[in-house]
């Protein structure tokens, strides 16, 4: 027997964990689990939840042992078989089809100007809504949605369509309860996205632009894969930048000393972004499945184990981050796992950084004097698989 096997222990069960509790505030639950063991079997979630940084990092970097192509995937049902649920080499073919559309050079040369125009548009709309307005509904959501609409090339849809498609398909992906109404709404969006793709591809062949769909028209990738990857991107590239934007504003408004430092030195906005996305990872958990019996950080796992890689918990591991539950933009820099790691590292990471840290956050704080939380309407954060502000009413001095 190997030394590792001798030290390995059976996976503990966390039967006290409930989904409503996770949804309200997962962090005390993550902390209790992580303090006890790096992995727990969680009956309510029907997954082995991995909460330590080290264990999550190991999983991300070993796709052979920890496969993304999990059995009975809800995401595959809701969106089709996208790259997110494939391993290499199949995954790499899909990934390469995104070309350089989302990379830093394309962002500098093309997308930043579009992000700026969209931020101008929705900030004007937000100002018109007046103090007391919800920053998520009136600015962050349409901003993220319109950015993604143009990045993807859906000239035949609206940003409202994008938001609806995103939320209904995400709900389908999370439909553990097998709610038929959730499936119905998800399926309707699935079909609408397919129709939109079918309609726009011929147009983009004749009128190529910088978008993802335009790039696809010249890539060696089957239509079925395009369909699934576009749905995955709608699910992965809208709520998430919206959510980090909301959390960043809420965090700064809740930490006045840090806010003062940022207002005095706007080169700090990238640090604000990184700390926000660490503190409340927009995607808190994603799945993997073991391909054989193994021992992970001293815990025995069977072949075929359905894992939840809880990066929301890993990002607050005290072994890596000092005083991890606190929001602190000046903390010692350690790499967080909010964008994942390895071959599935978020393809939209640079888009998120540019659109949120580079444009939206600086502009919000520059153009809304004395931006502050509304004491009469509390801000609300929610979720655990996806987490962000569901409501962020703010005030500012409208007279300046």
């Amino acid at each position: 027997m190997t030394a590792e096997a001798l030290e390995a222990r059976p996976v503990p069960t966390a039967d006290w964990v409930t989904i409503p509790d996770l949804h309200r505030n997962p962090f005390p639950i993550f902390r209790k689990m992580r303090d006890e063991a790096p992995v727990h079997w969680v009956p309510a979630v029907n997954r082995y939840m991995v909460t330590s940084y080290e264990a999550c990092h190991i999983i991300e970097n070993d796709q052979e042992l920890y496969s993304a192509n999990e059995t009975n995937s809800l995401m595959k049902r809701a969106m089709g078989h996208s790259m997110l649920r494939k391993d290499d080499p199949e995954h790499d073919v899909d990934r390469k089809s995104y070309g350089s559309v989302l990379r830093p050079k394309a962002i500098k040369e093309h997308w930043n100007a579009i992000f700026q125009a969209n931020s101008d548009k929705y900030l004007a709309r937000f100002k018109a809504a007046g103090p007391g307005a919800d920053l998520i509904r009136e600015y962050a959501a349409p901003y993220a949605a319109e950015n993604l609409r143009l990045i993807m090339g859906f000239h035949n849809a609206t940003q409202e369509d994008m938001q609806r498609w995103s939320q209904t398909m995400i709900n389908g992906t999370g439909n553990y309860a097998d709610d038929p109404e959730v499936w119905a709404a998800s399926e309707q969006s699935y079909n609408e996205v397919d129709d939109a793709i079918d309609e726009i591809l011929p147009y983009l062949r004749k009128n190529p632009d910088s978008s993802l769909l335009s790039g696809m028209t010249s890539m060696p990738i089957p239509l079925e894969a395009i369909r699934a990857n576009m749905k995955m991107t709608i699910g992965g590239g809208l709520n998430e930048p919206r959510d980090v934007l909301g959390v960043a504003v809420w965090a700064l408004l809740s930490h006045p000393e840090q806010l003062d430092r940022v207002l005095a030195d706007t080169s700090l906005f990238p640090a604000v972004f990184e700390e926000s996305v660490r503190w409340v990872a927009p995607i808190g958990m994603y799945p993997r499945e073991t391909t054989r019996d193994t021992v992970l950080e001293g815990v025995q796992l069977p072949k075929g184990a359905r894992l939840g890689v809880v990066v929301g918990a890993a990002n607050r591991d005290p072994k890596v981050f000092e005083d991890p539950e606190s929001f602190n933009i000046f903390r010692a820099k350690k790499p967080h796992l909010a964008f994942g790691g390895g071959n599935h590292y978020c393809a939209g990471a640079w888009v998120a950084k540019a659109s949120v840290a580079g444009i939206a956050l600086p502009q919000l704080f520059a153009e809304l004097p004395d931006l502050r939380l509304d004491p009469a309407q509390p801000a609300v954060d929610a979720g655990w698989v996806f987490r962000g502000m569901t409501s962020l009413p703010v005030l500012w001095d409208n007279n300046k």
Partner: protein
Amino acid sequence: MAKISFHHSDGNVDVLDVDPGTSIMRAAVTNGVDGIIGECGGQAMCATCHVYVRPEYLDGLPGIGDDEEEMLDCTTEERDGDRSRLGCQLKAGEAFDSIEVDLPASQI
């Protein structure tokens, strides 16, 4: 086997013997060498495997490709026009048989 020497700013050196085909980034990550992250797993999109190749090893290295060139302008620490490379793009046995690199102060 090929040899990679990682020079840290405090004077310490990690020396690894690696199989052919192993990138500088993969060697560091697999062996727990501090100072290289390799967030994107070697896709030349995160710029967190930045290394400064020691001058005597620059000759014979493969040229910098388009993706690598783009990412070398995104590194946290300043780019050295001659010495900066992405560790994920340099593979043992292909790019080098022996190499020494200095690690930047930070990758993020």
